[in-house]
């Protein structure tokens, strides 16, 4: 018994040691964001006094509310588009028999394997030719067809017993009403997980915005912070840490409130097979 107990303590200690490295950047970010300029210059991690100077200076050049709002608009539009397209597609691939359904599933799988980076330049050229650079459309459209979303929902629909659908059909429900009245409510857990996966991914995405945005009017958080680095206050580490804190705040708050769903959602791609 005694050996077991000390073993548990040892594991806790080992995990705590690792956690120091994992959490250090967050702690340093927070502490520095409240530190007066002289402590920041001296590289003191624990500030001698606390001040809000870094935040007031950062916020002069940082329209963070606009970035939050842009992030919200873009992620919501992307997810709405993904659901609108993926639910019927996944249902069709899982439950309807039609010519080419095998091919459809194969195509979805192939698309999951192609990284976003591969399609970036051609999409950029196309959107540029269409005059869509610097629009919400450019930020949203490339992601509404989510192969991963279709595949995930298809797998989920396959687990719903066919009897459920047959019963509805016997009651005279058409494909559309089966979809809205039965499939959607049943798919809620899968949709919540996919929603978090999609939301976190696009909220944090910097790669694609850096292709199709040229100024920060429509900037989401990551693009916004990088443009902030080019401003006067942005060259100082103190305001930089204040900015970083403000940037990670909404997502980390969400994470702390709903960590189980978050881990499940983000780790989705880890359970997709």
């Amino acid at each position, binding site marked *: 018994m005694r050996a077991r107990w000390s073993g548990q303590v040892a594991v*806790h200690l080992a995990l705590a040691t690792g956690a120091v490295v994992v959490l250090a950047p967050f702690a340093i970010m927070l502490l520095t964001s409240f530190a007066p300029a002289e402590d920041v210059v001296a590289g003191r991690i624990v500030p001698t006094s606390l001040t809000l100077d870094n935040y007031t200076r950062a916020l002069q050049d940082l329209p963070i509310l606009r970035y939050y709002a842009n992030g919200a608009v873009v992620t919501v539009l992307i997810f709405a588009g993904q659901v609108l397209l993926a639910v019927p597609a996944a249902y069709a691939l899982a439950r309807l028999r039609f010519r080419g359904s095998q091919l459809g599933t194969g195509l979805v799988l192939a698309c999951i394997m192609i990284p976003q980076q591969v399609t970036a330049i051609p999409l950029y050229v196309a959107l540029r030719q269409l005059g869509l650079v610097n629009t919400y459309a450019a930020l949203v459209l490339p992601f509404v067809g989510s192969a991963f979303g279709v595949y995930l929902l298809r797998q989920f629909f396959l687990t719903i017993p066919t009897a459920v659908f047959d019963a509805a059909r016997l009651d005279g429900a058409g494909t559309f009403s089966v979809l809205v009245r039965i499939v959607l409510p049943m798919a809620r857990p899968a949709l919540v997980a996919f929603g978090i996966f999609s939301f976190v991914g696009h909220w944090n995405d*910097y790669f694609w915005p*850096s292709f199709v945005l040229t100024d920060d009017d429509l900037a989401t958080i990551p693009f916004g912070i990088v443009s902030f680095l080019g401003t006067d206050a942005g060259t100082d580490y103190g305001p930089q840490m204040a900015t970083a804190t403000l*940037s*990670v705040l909404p997502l980390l708050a969400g994470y702390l409130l709903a960590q189980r769903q978050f881990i499940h959602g983000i780790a989705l791609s880890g359970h997709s097979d």
Partner: protein
Amino acid sequence: MVVALLAFVVLPAAFAVGLAFVRWDLLRGTVEFVGIENFATEIAGGELGRGVLVTVGYAVLTVPASLAGGLLVALGIDALSHGRAFWRAVYFLPVAATLVAMSIVWRWMFRPDTGVVDATVGRLTGLRDWLNSLELALPAVAAVGTWQQVGFVAVVYLAALTAVPRDVLEAARLDGAGALSRFRHVTWPALGPATVFAVVLTSTAALRVYDTIRTMTDGGPAGSTESLAFLLWRRGVAYFDVGAGATLTVALLVLAGLVTLLQVRVLGRGLERKGTR
């Protein structure tokens, strides 16, 4: 849906390959077929080779480290009777944080002399000013990448650890097998699929490395951290050189293909073995 996938994934991917063989002047709007000229200039200029080397180097630095770290964390958490959810949440925290923002924090931590890294690791090992060093800049970026994804790998392994046969472990323990040999002969084989999956996941992440590089080093010093994704952006967007950018896309596509091939072959073999038993 199929139309959306065709429009936004398949066509662009095919288009990307096509673009590699033309010279497209975006400002004047002229397109001409130039054959393999784009590849010739990109290879001769050294950019293509460097991009592949940096990307593969980044993968070599991050994949084993993330797997080892993630596995250790998962084994630790799995051995606990209390506080599993707590430690899982702690280690997963970086995965949920905005990487661009955290890269700015890391850049500050890697600051020469007064930065945290130089003040601790630097003092112990003599390795300092990582981000301005030809040899250490890529490892610095890789360290941040590893820091960010260890929790993710740990969650993948934690899920797989629930599938390790407890009765076999118990039987091995009663037969006098030590902790190490129980791990080697029972736990590790059972984690096979999760390991393949974690390798695919982390290598794919390596092919995409971008946020940290743009914020921490901007490709420098002297091009030592120019990953393919970074060069893609610089060629295509910053320099408007679509043809050269497309050759980098082709390189990326080939590397992604290799990862997929690895996944299909290893997973396929594993499944076959299961099937014949």
